[in-house]
């Protein structure tokens, strides 16, 4: 199937990356997984090969090595139809706020790297006149809160970047979609106790990504609609009240 659509999933070792790859592979897409941990990407590729009957390609990519992005994109066998970036680093608020190097790592992993990588795809897709870019941001970026504002602010930056990119590309045939999953049961949150109704499985996030891609409507969405009222309230709360909360 040489004319199947192609998707590149950046963060291919992650649980959301794995689930997303499975959904696209099941629908007959050619999938490429990119990630820093190539062995883990290969492990996921094996899994999808057995389950879906088609094996994703794997390529190494470090989201912090921003100077290599242009060469990476130009080195791909084809410019993909869709790029999904699920890269993220939760960090540790308490540690990060007293360790600037750690804080910088969290910020660069969630904002600088993903934004610059997607930017490299944006111009190439724009000149082709077609393409879908999906960025996984976070509800944590909707308002900075004491419990996770280093992660949250980097996701806020990424959300704003995606919003701007969407605005820029909307008339050039490229659709930019922001997906905010809320809590997801993954390796990243394995140490946390999560509220059940607010917590999505990686497969649920993957389906939301695929459906949004198919719909080709440039927008920002929450995977579980319950997050919309919650985050609306958190966003519009007057600062004087907000400062009295412990969020």
């Amino acid at each position: 199937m040489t004319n199947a659509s192609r998707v590149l999933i950046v963060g291919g070792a992650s649980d959301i990356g794995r689930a997303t790859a499975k959904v696209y592979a099941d629908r007959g897409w050619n999938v490429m997984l990119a990630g820093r941990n190539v062995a883990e990407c290969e492990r996921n590729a094996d899994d999808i090969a057995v389950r879906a009957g088609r094996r994703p390609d794997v390529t190494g990519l470090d989201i912090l090595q921003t100077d290599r992005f242009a060469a990476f994109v130009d080195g791909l066998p084809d410019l993909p139809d869709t790029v999904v970036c699920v890269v993220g680093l939760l960090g540790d608020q308490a540690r990060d706020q007293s360790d600037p190097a750690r804080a910088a790592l969290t910020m660069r992993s969630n904002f600088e790297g993903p934004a610059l990588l997607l930017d490299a795809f944006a111009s190439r897709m724009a000149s082709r006149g077609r393409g879908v870019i999906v960025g996984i941001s976070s509800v944590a970026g909707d308002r900075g809160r004491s419990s996770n504002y280093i992660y949250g602010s980097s996701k806020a930056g990424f959300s704003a970047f995606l919003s701007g990119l969407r605005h820029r590309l909307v008339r050039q045939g490229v659709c930019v979609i922001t997906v905010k999953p809320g809590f997801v049961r993954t390796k990243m949150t394995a140490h946390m106790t999560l509220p059940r109704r607010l917590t999505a499985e990686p497969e649920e996030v993957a389906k939301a990504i695929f459906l949004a891609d198919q719909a080709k409507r440039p927008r920002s969405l929450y995977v579980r609609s319950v997050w919309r009222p919650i985050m609306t309230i958190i966003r519009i709360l007057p600062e004087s009240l907000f400062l009295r909360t412990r969020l």
Partner: protein
Amino acid sequence: MTADLAGWGRYPRHNSNLLAPHSVAALCAMQASLDNYVARGAGRAYGDAGIGLGSTIAMRALNRMRDFDPVNGLVTVEAGVSLEEVIDALLPRGWFVPAVPGTRFVTVGGMVAADVHGKNHHRTGGFGAHVASLKLLAPRGELLTCSRDENCALFDATIGGMGLTGAIVEVTLRLIRVETGWVRQRTVATRDLESTLAALAKAEAEATYSVAWIDISPGRRPVGRGVVLLGEHALAAELPEGQPVVPPRRARRLSIPVELPEGLLNRWSVGAFNTLYHCKAALRGEADLVRWDSYFFPLDAIGNWNRMYGQSGFLQHQCVVPWPAGPEVVAEILDRVAAAGCAPFLAVLKSLGAGAGDLSFPMPGLTLTIDLRVTPQVLCLLDELDRIVVAAGGRLYLAKDARQSPNTFRAGYPGLADFEALRREIGATGRLTSRLSERLAIQ
């Protein structure tokens, strides 16, 4: 993280330090610093086999399928992959797992560790017989490939070894070809134990899959009326026109949301259920086409069915008694259970062949399974049943066990001496310890 762990029977409960590695590398790093640990799969062993004395390694995140060879029907999966996942992936391509237990929610690693058996054990052996090779993280930290040609003593000990030789990391399994995802089922209703046993013997000679369900509602005479279920994988030519070769996935409709009140399963409710079931089977008789999941895993249709027994949990007593004493001993056990007035929900009878590993449960004989709610009287009754089983040269299934004594266990498992010698050799003694191995004094 300390967790309160129990098996599927929800009895007993123990605290254990629960760890959940996401890769083999993480597992290896973790294992080096642990003592008194055991790996845990889906937590479907009924008793305390999947609870580490100190630490428990949750294997579910090692859930990648690694390779499939469609020429030879060999699939390689990480140990945390579930049976359901294997069937979902490969049944549409015409493959099935040659030995399956009563639930599809077990892990492949767990199936190896318990050497699980299915309704075809008398013909094709247990799960272990179909394992081509496995990767084991041995107690000293080496990742060893084990098969019938390589590290074969360790392979034999690991099959049915209840995780006490190391953490099973990866399994290569031989599958069988099937044409459809349907089973041709025949049911034979019987009126007493003698006719049930005769129908079962006949079924075992004829059919690939066979099992007998027995009504042991208190007060029912004669004891042992039942239903014998026979099954064959349906051929494509046997399906009515337009029927899909593999039945479409079905969402689970029913789940038990909370623990039900203790008294709900009583002699009257269980008796009524059993009578209904028997009448339905007696009416049906003729061959039926049944979905693979309904045929092999009927209880999976009810989510969390273990909550039916209430807060105190339940025990499943599964023994095997060698020929020729089997039928007589089964009759005696059924009499004792009936006399005690307990209300068992489920009594299942079938015959087994030989097991594959040192501590495998199956041996040529008859196996009887009874579920009972945990009460002091039931614990006494089961001790009594154990004495009958031991006297007849039989034994209990470790994957179901939560309470047998070390003496009952030792009497039933002559392979134990070799197993313990191997444990000493590989450094497992005192290092790999589950609540089960501690209770049964396995060295």
